[in-house]
């Protein structure tokens, strides 16, 4: 600690003080700890394997998400059918770079980045792509990349239709972490929002989209 010119003790700033406390707490020779990683860093199935698609579907359904299988050329019809059934033909918002034909025929609002939260609250649903999906945990991850848009899009509307390509499906959490770029804004989604706060009764759909529909694209 340095003394000020007038003889009174200078008050150290919080950062130096906390750092000094930590160093003092650890002593001169903090223990050297080796990190052991004996856990699985990949699964037995290759990304996109049929077993993984079945597993992902099973886990998603377990958490009350809907799952529809589709071939690549059937995506527009599948998405259109879901929107018709679940959004009642209402307006849906899409990221600026979502493939145009995915929502052909729907009443689409393309996000230009200027839509307010209140405006998003008035649309019936949102359609996005995803970055990666984890079969074992029934998780899809959005990273604001291609076909996904900013985070508010997939949050405020009450229906989220998410299109997942088979090759985006990995088996384990470590495989997903390895595929993601941490500096992008990431949202890991496992089923629709839920609460168990009242007597531990699970209620699906609280603040996020109350309905999550996954379109699993194969072939």
């Amino acid at each position, binding site marked *: *600690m340095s003394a000020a010119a007038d003889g009174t003790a200078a008050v*150290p*700033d*919080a*950062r130096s*003080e*906390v*750092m*000094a*406390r*930590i*160093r*003092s*707490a*650890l002593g001169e020779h*903090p223990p*050297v*700890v*080796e*990190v*052991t*990683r*004996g*856990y*699985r860093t990949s699964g037995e199935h290759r990304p996109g394997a049929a077993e993984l698609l079945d597993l992902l579907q099973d886990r998603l359904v377990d*958490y009350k998400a809907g799952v529809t299988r589709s071939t690549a050329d059937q995506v527009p019809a599948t998405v259109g059918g879901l929107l018709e059934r679940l959004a009642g033909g209402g307006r849906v918002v899409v990221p600026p770079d979502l493939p145009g034909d995915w929502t052909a025929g729907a009443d689409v609002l393309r996000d230009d980045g200027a839509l307010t*939260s209140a405006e998003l609250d008035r649309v019936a649903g949102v359609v996005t792509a995803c970055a990666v999906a984890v079969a074992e*945990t*029934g998780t899809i991850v959005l990273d*604001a990349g291609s076909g996904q848009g*900013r*985070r*508010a899009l997939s*949050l405020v509307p009450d229906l989220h239709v998410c299109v997942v390509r088979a090759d985006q499906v990995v088996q384990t*959490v470590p495989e997903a*972490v*390895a595929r993601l770029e*941490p*500096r*992008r*804004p*990431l*949202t*890991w*989604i*496992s*089923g629709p*929002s*839920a*609460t*168990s*706060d*009242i*007597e*531990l009764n699970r209620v699906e*759909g*609280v*603040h*996020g*989209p109350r309905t999550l529909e996954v379109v699993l694209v194969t072939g």
Partner: protein
Amino acid sequence: MTTFLGIPSVGAPVRSSPGVGHLQGSESFPTAARRALGDSQLRSNIGRATTTIRGKRARVVGEVPDWEELREAGRTLKASTMARLPELLGQLEEQVTAAGGTVHWARDAAEANAIVTRLVQATGADEVVKVKSMATQEIGLNEALEAAGISAWETDLAELIVQLGHDLPSHILVPAIHRNRSEIREIFRREMPGLGTELPPDLTDEPRELAMTARRHLRRTFLRAQVAISGANFAVAETGTLSVVESEGNGRMCLTLPRTLITVMGIEKVVPTWQDLEVFLQLLPRSSTGERMNPYTSMWTGVTPGDGPQEVHLVLLDNGRTAVLADEVGREALHCIRCSACLNVCPVYERTGGHAYGSVYPGPIGAVLSPQLTGMTGDAVNDSLPYASSLCGACYDVCPVKIDIPSILVELRAQHVEAAAASGRLPTPEAALMKAAAVSMTSPFRWRLAQRASRLGRLLARGRDGQRRIRSLPPPLSGWTGTRDLPEPPAETFRESWAREGRS
């Protein structure tokens, strides 16, 4: 043992500031627990809840073939992080700053509250939305904001129930676990209309209907809020990435919609690398809610132009953590990832509930963390917490990062006895009792006398609810019965029975 009394030298670890925040209750654990045990509604709510979560956790943990390897990785990662804390916090600060965020440091609760209050005031906002966060409960941030004229809205359903009920959380994960559905309906009916949410006159107590009422009540708040306050489950030093793990989507609302985001985080929450999240994202949800993965996990790194909050702050909080770090045994309590699995398996917690612990950190982990954060003086309220355990070890078995809670409890009990001795509170009743036993055992005559005298205890066991048990002994033995009842002494001693039966 190290004690921190008086004015510490600069750089010496310091306990949390007394009088600010919620790390210590107003009465000792046995006193609070005795009252909680008398509340049959509370006991049945908590018993049902902990049994349910225990079952769910066991099922989803059982399906992970490498669970023990993940636990060991979690343990070594946390131990390694603590040993490298200065370097990792420095790196985290650098990365958050490089990504457009601002990092603040707080020595204690009062300083953290002042920083957050100043940041909110600078935005001109008079309200904030909050994501459930243990750190901000610990420092009493809501009260500090209220005092500055800023309304702090809790947005987690359970936290909302607690806040509207003018109540305190009783569980880390499900803070309103002590309330049943009809109580929750009454709270909503009483409080929400005054806050601008009209309720239908025929509102039932169905959980779905109550949850939808909360959704409607909070949506308006989310859409207008300019400032959000969160905690963080993890902060990655390597990349500056912060993470919040949640279920309802209230977290995503807070982390995405407002312009300004302020995160308050204990310094022990940092993890070294991005890859390390692959361990904790597997350990936490399965241990916590008993789910393979929680519905939503958000991760953000500083500011992303055009997406989410454009002003991002991180407040790094000490508030007694460095004092915990200074204890070579006790420091393991800092490895806690706040899953609450130890609460759900604890036979003591299951019967007393969370309020009896007096701190925002209840249950086994609270019993080791709270007294270390506040310090034990020999007669502080939190001195009773290391004894709030039967040392059965169930907490250690389920801990996802293998914190050896029983060993820390034993160590803290030893430290407490030393602290009591140092403050002149020895000899203890136990010591006096042992001395008396030694004297009475020196001759058969004295032993017989002592046994007959014990029969007087039958008088103490009379009456009360038909159960013949001794609930309190006179001083100096009252300390013993403070935490346990004694059976009524028998009418006849073994020696007397032996003599009588031998004669017949």
